[in-house]
């Protein structure tokens, strides 16, 4: 006869099996149409490029070599691939600058929202949420219309007599920075606001009672308490910024490519699928590193709180 323990264990096993069955559709869809194909990218990055797109099934490290190095077409010597490195550096630089700009603007905004009365807070939250859910393409297009030569900024400056000819902002790195800061700002504000909302202002009051200045209260009390939100916001901005495709392709024009546009080029006109694959894996690795830093930081932060 089965003991109570055995019956319980059998029930547990059935429960786990049911749970696998229940989650199977979601897992299969994601494995087939997201995770699985990523492995194919890895394989492709080690193959030989075919003349008109696609690959030949022959192993070759060439794609990985040419991510950072350039082979001279005459004497076969290798040198650093300046063009590729410029594009990588631009992407990393712009993504970091976007993070800094959105943090500088988003932190005070989140603070402002969190210090409103309970009732109006929802309204401010709603006002941040609307741009967040508005199509990124449309928002980038809206920025385009503001900063182009005939746009509102140049028109106003010219009417005021400050400048005589329009400033060329569009199709520069500055345009990409403005655009990315604009589209990713809500991603910074929302997590900071979420941790700011839980801030206990009695601690702030205690700080002032102990003769802290406004700056000291901000640096020593508020900032440490909302640090998880700040880190979450920074990661949420940095990751899409480094892989941004729409914003640089609209605001940067053909010359100021970021990694994504460069990858697209390899699958399009350049007909170099293995290089495109190697570049894609490289972006993925950069993002993974950023995520690891995030996990370690938040892990450490929650550890501090427990300890």
């Amino acid at each position, binding site marked *: 006869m089965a003991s109570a323990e055995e019956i319980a264990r059998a029930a547990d096993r059935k429960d786990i099996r049911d749970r696998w069955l*229940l989650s199977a559709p979601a897992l299969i*869809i994601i494995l087939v149409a997201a995770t699985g194909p990523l492995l194919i990218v890895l394989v492709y990055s080690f193959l030989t490029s075919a003349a008109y797109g696609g690959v030949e099934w022959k192993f070759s490290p060439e794609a990985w070599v040419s991510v950072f190095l350039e082979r001279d077409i005459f004497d076969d010597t290798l040198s650093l691939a300046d063009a590729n490195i410029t594009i990588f550096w631009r992407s990393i630089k712009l993504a970091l600058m976007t993070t800094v700009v959105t943090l500088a603007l988003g932190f005070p*905004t989140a603070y402002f929202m969190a210090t409103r009365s309970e009732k109006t807070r929802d309204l401010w939250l709603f006002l941040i949420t609307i741009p967040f859910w508005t199509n990124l393409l449309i928002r980038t297009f809206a920025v385009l219309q503001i900063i182009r030569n005939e746009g509102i900024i140049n028109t106003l400056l010219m009417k005021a007599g400050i400048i005589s000819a329009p400033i060329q902002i569009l199709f520069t790195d500055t345009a990409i920075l403005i655009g990315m800061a604009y589209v990713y700002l809500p991603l910074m504000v929302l997590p900071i606001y979420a941790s700011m909302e839980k801030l206990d202002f009695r601690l702030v009051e205690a700080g002032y009672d102990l003769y802290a200045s406004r700056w000291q209260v901000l640096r020593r009390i508020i900032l440490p308490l909302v640090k998880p939100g700040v880190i979450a916001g920074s990661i949420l901005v940095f990751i899409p910024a480094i892989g941004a495709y729409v914003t640089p392709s609209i605001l940067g024009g053909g010359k100021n490519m970021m990694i994504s546009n460069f990858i697209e080029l390899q699958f399009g006109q350049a007909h170099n699928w293995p290089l495109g694959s190697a570049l894609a894996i490289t972006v993925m690795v950069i993002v993974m590193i950023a995520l690891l830093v995030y996990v370690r930081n938040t892990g450490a932060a929650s550890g501090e709180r427990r300890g």
Partner: protein
Amino acid sequence: MAKPFSIRHQPGFTAIAALCFFALYLPILVLVVYAFNAASSTAEWGGLSLKWFQSAAQNTQVIDATVRSFQIAATAAVIATIAATMAALATTRTPPYPGLTFKYAAINQPLMVPEIVTAVALLIFFSRIKIFTGYSGLGYLIAAHTAFCIPFAYLPIRARLENMDLTLERAAADLYATPWRAFRRVTLPLLWPGILAGLMLAFVISLDDVVITEFVKSGGQDTLPTYMLGQIRRGITPEINAISTAFLLLSVAIVTLFFFVSRKRD
């Protein structure tokens, strides 16, 4: 008279916040205003007119792209929400079991990888399948959209499940309800707001997608966003403003609805 000391005040913060809200809405406002521009170029103002809305509504490319966008978004959102609901039921309200962490990681995987990488991966994968099977319909786009919609649909459903009261389901079981009946009559009604929120989230995410669609689509499979991207690259007419305005209104409507659904407490 000096203002009373406020512990919540930080110098300059309100000004920066005001600037942010102004900067967030100014471009959108300009975009909408120029949709009503009678002039044929966005560089000048020619008085109020609805002609660009009319021209967009009569443009067969726009109509086709819109219909296609809705087809894909509706199909992908429904499949993703059903799969996400099942997955959420399988991964919540349980002590940790072998494979649970794997499931979390797998479900959230599309969020962890930059869109461009997934786009390239799907381009390679689907182009092989296309050659192999000869099929080049909307199925590829729907499969791709379903996959990246699942984590978005999963989030609100899981949140809802985790806050749900288990006692009601136990009570149903005590009253001899079969598991299926208890699910239909107790769990599902309680879970409904989460499912609805997940569905709307998935729908918006699919409707907005540019990057993955741009890489996966075959010829003549433009969705509204990829059609707009092509037009913007070619040079702009106020027609794009009109389409954007209509799109914007739809997004605002869905967000408003979402806000109310997710705020509603039982």
